[in-house]
Each structure stands twice: as C-alpha cells, then as structure tokens.
C-alpha cells in the first residue's frame, strides 16, 4: 500500500497532539486517584506513542499497512481513555472501546511488521478474539451493574460510574459465576496462543523477520504474564493495592509493546542498511546472473533467493519481484516474503538485474562485432591472395608467354640468318610487333595493380581514364589534381571501378553514369550513380564484388552504401575518412 504524503503525516501528527492534550484535560478533571501528573503522563503516552510510532511505520513502504493500523489504534485508545471520565455514558463507551482494543492489540502483534496476518493460525486466533468480545463481553453490557474494576482503562477504583447500558434490574448470577471467569480464561488462552504463535514464526522465519519480531515476542510474553497475574489478583482481592498496581502495569504494557514495535522496525531498517552496504562491497555483481544471485542472497541473508528467467510463482513464505523492461519481463527474483515491499531491496535488486542484462547484451554484441571483424579480415586476406594468384596467372598466361615466344623466335632468327637470310630477316621484322604486344600486356597488367594516372594525377584523373574504357558514357565530377592519402585514393578508385563494372554489367537501360568526388566534414565522398533500371534491394543477392567493396571501404575506416529502387537507378556512396586534409597537387 502507498505511503502517505508528508502533508498527511504532519496533519495526523497534529491531530494526535490534539488528542493528547484532550485526554490530559479529561484525565485531570475526571475521577482520579493518586497523582494526577502521573496519570496524565501515562495516558498521553498510551495515545501518543502508538500514533507516533504508527506514523513512522506508515511512512515506510514495507510496514505501511501496519503503520496505518497502529496509528488507528492510537486514535481508538483515545476512545478507551474516555473511561477516565466521571460521566456514566462516556465512561461506558470508554470501557466498551477498551474491550475492543484488547483484540486489536492481538491483531497488531500477530500482523507485525507487514500489517497482514501471515497464516491460518493467526487468522484463527484473531477470529477467536473477536468472537469472545462479540459474544462474551459486549452482550454482558446489558446485564451488569458496573464494569469490572480495577481495569487498565478505568482510573477509578471504588467510585466508578454505573453501567448506563444495563437493561435488567440486577445482574444475573450466571454472569458473575460463569461468563466472567470463562471469558477471562479464554482471553488468556488466546493471548498464550498468540505469544506461542509469534515464537513459532520466529523459528521459521528469515533473519530479517526474526530481528523485527524478536522484541515484540519478548514484550508480548511479559504482558501475558502480567495480565494473568492481574486477572488472578483481581479475582482474589479486587480492592487491594496489588490489584490496582497490576492493573496499572497491564496498562503500561501498551506503550511498552509499542516501543517493542519501534525497536523491531528500527532493527529492520538497520538490517536493510547493513545489507545494502554488504551488497555495495561486492564487485562482481554484474558479471553473471549467478553472481548477482549469490550477491543478493549473501547481502540480505536469504540463502534461498533465486533469479529465474521468465515468470514464476512463489512458494509459501516467498515472494516474487519481477524485473521488467517496458512491458517485457526479463527476470523474476524469488526472495523472502518480508522483502516484498522493502523499497531499498526491490530498487537495488531491479537496478542490478537490469545491469546484468545490459552487460550480457554488450558482451554478445562485442562478440558479434569481433566475429564480423574476423570474418571481414579473413575475406580481405583471401581476396588479397586471390588477387595475387590472378596477377601471377595474368603474368604467366599473358606477358610471360609472349616474352618466351619472343625469345624462341630470336633464337630461331639467329639460326635462320646464317642458313636462310631472307627468311631470317623476315622473322626479325615480325619480332617488333611481338615485342609491342608483350609491352601492352604488361602495361595493362600494371594498370590493374596500380594505374599510372592514379599515382601521378589523383583519383579524378584516374577515373576519367577508366571512364574512357567503359562501355557506358561516364561523367566524372571532381577537382582535377586534388590529392588524398594513397590508401584512400586507392580504395576509392577500386570501389568506383567495381561500381562502374556493375553498372556496365547489370544496369539495364542506363544511358549515363555519373561519378562525383567531393569532400564533406573531413571525409572523402565518392558517389557513382547510374540511371538504369535499378534493382530491389530486398531481393538482390549480395555478390562477391559488393562484399569486397564493402570490406575495402570498412578496412579503410569508412563505409559503403548502395541504394537502389526499381526504375530509379542505382547509387553507390562510399565515404572514407581523411586523416589530414586533402592537399592540392602542385602543378608541374
């Protein structure tokens, strides 16, 4: 249940103070025996303490319900205090209220500290108490001459006001003989049951609950003893001093039990504080779910604490705190029921759980990225190997063959010149074009490795040169002579080449390709746009060429994006970082 706002608490505290003042007044002017100041102090404590401690408990989420009940008790005690009055009716109302309060105290003791009765036995005991008051106490009001004295509620001893509710002319004998002793015995039995029940709960509960209800058990047991004594002595010698003293002691136990509640609540608070401190000392909480589980279990002394995925139901004495991300449940923490409403625990556990999840996600993402990088690297290495092989093949199949043939023919020519001069001379003449062809092969090969225009004049010129050899019309827009770092120029050049080849191969109906080289925010921007048919990106299969392009761009620290729509052409944009600034190539 929600805790009241500060304003409400202050209001209730003010009301409590008012009542204390009132009861002081009533007591001072009512039937008094002995010291007035003593009595006033005692009665003010009996009202003020429950209200004060009750408001404190009400302000904590974990004991809010109990706190509300305890505060209420203070106000009800006020009614019971009316038995100090000399007015018959007021006194009568006070005594009736006094009987109700006895049951109420039992209820408070059994429902501490959450404010809910934890089990069946508790509910039975309270029900029994209600039954006793309802059937054995209240109805007798109609029959008796006066309320029993002495009583913790009445300050009068001998000159008590008569019972105003009596309807019969005199008291029936059976009330004195049977009902009174009977109900007192049952009342004692119920108090014994309550105290035992509390002691049993202590042995079954977690450390936190034991800490909280320990003081209450002690106070309850002591009160029981005093109560038995008081009732016994009252039966023996109603008017003697011991009876009056014991009646006072019983009355005193109301503040004492309230102080026991306070002690329990403070021990609870200290325990939670210490637990949070223990939790804060753990450095490994976020490494895994198991680590968090063990951390929480140790810190809060709850060895049975579990963290499970998804949703789960709690067993007896356990509660479930769900950790959510928006609407989605991430995990469920099964823990001691007592911690269910403890804000500090719930907040800390939830925050840590979210961090564990975040950590897991980050770790997975990192692993994924590492895998991507490794794959990319492997691809790049494989591509490099492949290109080397291709180069070797091209050299072997092309230029090398020509040179070998040239060599053979030279040998032949040398021999022929001695034997058959004309034929030899003819052969020598043929060797010229052969040498040219070999040279051309080598030139073409070199262009494939690193084109001369790129090395000499920069990317715009190199692409213009490549454009001349493209089957499609290509326009290159870029500053002539603008130079960039070698690796950037090379990457951009080969990416553009790949894009041009793709356009030539796949762009149906393209009339023109535009290559634009520009700089933007310290990055080189290369765009190749064709006005062909385009393709549907969702359905296109990524070829090796595009993957290679992407790998190259990423390896250089940039990225490549290919956009296309059916009917809207294709556009490839590669952006690459420029470490320094691009420099203007000095004109020779």
């Amino acid at each position, binding site marked *: 249940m929600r805790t009241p706002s500060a304003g409400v608490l202050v209001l209730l505290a003010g009301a409590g103070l008012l009542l204390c003042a009132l009861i002081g007044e009533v007591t001072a002017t009512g039937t008094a025996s002995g010291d007035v100041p003593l009595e006033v102090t005692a009665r003010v404590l009996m009202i003020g303490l429950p209200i004060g401690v009750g408001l404190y408990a009400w302000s904590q989420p974990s004991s809010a319900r109990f706190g509300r009940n305890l505060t209420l008790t203070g106000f009800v005690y006020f009614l019971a205090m009316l038995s100090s009055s000399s007015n018959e009716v007021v006194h009568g109302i006070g005594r009736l209220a006094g009987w109700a309060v006895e049951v109420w105290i039992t209820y408070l003791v059994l429902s501490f500290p959450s404010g809910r009765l934890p089990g069946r036995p508790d509910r039975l005991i309270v029900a029994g108490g209600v039954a006793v008051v309802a059937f054995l106490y209240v109805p007798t009001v109609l029959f008796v001459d006066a309320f029993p004295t002495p009583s913790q509620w009445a300050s009068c001893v001998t000159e008590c006001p008569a019972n105003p509710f009596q309807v019969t002319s005199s008291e029936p004998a059976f009330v004195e003989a049977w009902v009174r002793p009977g109900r007192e015995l049952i009342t004692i039995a119920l108090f014994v049951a309550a105290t035992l029940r509390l002691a049993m709960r202590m042995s079954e509960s977690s450390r936190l609950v034991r800490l909280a209800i320990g003081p209450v058990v002690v106070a309850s047991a002591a009160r029981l003893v005093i109560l038995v004594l008081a009732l016994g002595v009252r039966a023996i010698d109603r008017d003697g001093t011991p009876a009056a003293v014991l009646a006072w002691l019983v009355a005193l136990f109301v503040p004492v039990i309230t102080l026991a509640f306070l002690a329990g609540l403070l021990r609870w608070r200290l325990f939670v504080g210490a637990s949070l401190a223990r939790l804060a000392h753990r450095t490994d909480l976020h490494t895994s779910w198991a680590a968090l589980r063990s951390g929480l279990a140790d810190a809060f002394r709850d060895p049975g604490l579990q963290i499970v995925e998804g949703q789960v139901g709690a067993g007896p004495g356990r509660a479930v705190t769900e950790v959510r991300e928006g609407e989605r449940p991430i995990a469920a923490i099964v823990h001691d029921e007592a911690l269910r409403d403890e804000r500090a625990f719930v907040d800390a556990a939830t925050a840590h759980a979210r961090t564990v999840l975040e950590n897991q996600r980050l770790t997975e993402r990192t692993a994924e990225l590492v895998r991507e990088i490794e794959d990319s690297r492997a691809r790049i290495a494989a591509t490099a190997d492949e290109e080397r092989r291709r180069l070797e093949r091209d050299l072997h199949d092309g230029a090398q063959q020509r040179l*070998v043939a040239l060599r053979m023919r030279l040998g*032949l020519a040398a021999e022929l010149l001695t034997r058959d001069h004309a034929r030899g001379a003819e052969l020598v003449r043929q060797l010229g074009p052969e040498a040219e062809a070999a040279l051309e092969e080598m030139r073409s090969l070199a262009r494939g490795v690193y084109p001369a225009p790129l090395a000499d004049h920069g990317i715009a010129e190199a692409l213009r040169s490549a454009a001349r050899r493209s089957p499609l019309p290509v326009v290159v827009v870029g500053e002539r002579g603008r130079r960039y770092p070698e690796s950037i120029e090379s990457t951009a050049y080969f990416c553009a080449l790949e894009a041009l080849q793709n356009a030539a191969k796949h762009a149906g109906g393209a009339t023109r390709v535009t290559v634009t080289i520009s700089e933007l925010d310290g990055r080189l921007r290369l765009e190749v746009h064709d006005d062909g048919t385009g393709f549907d990106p969702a359905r296109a299969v990524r070829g090796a060429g595009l993957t290679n392009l992407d790998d190259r761009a990423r390896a250089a620290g940039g990225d490549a994006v290919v956009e296309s729509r059916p009917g809207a052409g294709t556009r490839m944009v590669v952006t690459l970082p420029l470490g320094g600034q691009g420099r203007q190539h000095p004109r020779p």
Partner: protein
Amino acid sequence: MIPSPSRAVRVLTVDDQAVFRMAAREVIEATPGFEAVAEAGSGAEALTLTESLRPDLILMDVRMPGMGGVETSRRLHETRSEALVVLISFEDPADVDPVAQGCGAMACVRKQDFSPATLRKLWEDHRRIT
C-alpha cells in the same frame, strides 16, 4: 626406329598456351628433318592424338590445367608408347626433375631455349635404338 633420311621426325606439341604452340611450330618447321604433325591443348588431347598419329617426338609442357605434363607422360609410358617425350617448362629443369623421375620422359628443356639446334640435339641424344 631410326628414321631414314627420307622420313622426317614427326613432332607433337602439347601446351595449353596457343602462343607457345605457334612459336614451337615455327621452330620445328624451320628445322630440316622435322615435321610438326599436330598440336594438343591438353594432356587428354595428347593421349588421343598420340594414339591416332603415333608421333616420334612429343614436346610436353609440364604446367597444364587438368592432367599435367608429368602425369600425361607417365600414362604414355604405361601404354608403352614409342614416342620420345620431352618435358618443356618455364622453370629451371633442376626444379622439374625430381618430380618427373620415372615418368618416362627423356629430358627436360626450358621453353625459351627451344630452338632448331636444341631440337636436333634432343633427337640425337635420346632416340631409341630398337
């Protein structure tokens, strides 16, 4: 079989490169007493042509895709072909020899050293005497 002067030595050239085959043909044709009867572009083709044409001398490129020169040579050796097999290679013959041991080829020659003089020498050094 010792070729009589009236009969030319029939040579089969085996190489996947057309450029070399053409150059080799020119050399063979320019060597008196030798005749270029056929060219094969692969080891398989070489086996078929050897079967049908029965050349006297086979110039076998070592490096060919599919069945290489050494393997083809081995097969020919198994079929007891009477042709003289000479391995031709880009690389140093010293690198080729260990691989080619026992495959049946009689010699190994560099491509660029192939000239009429080489051709004649090969034939005279290694022809079989039946």
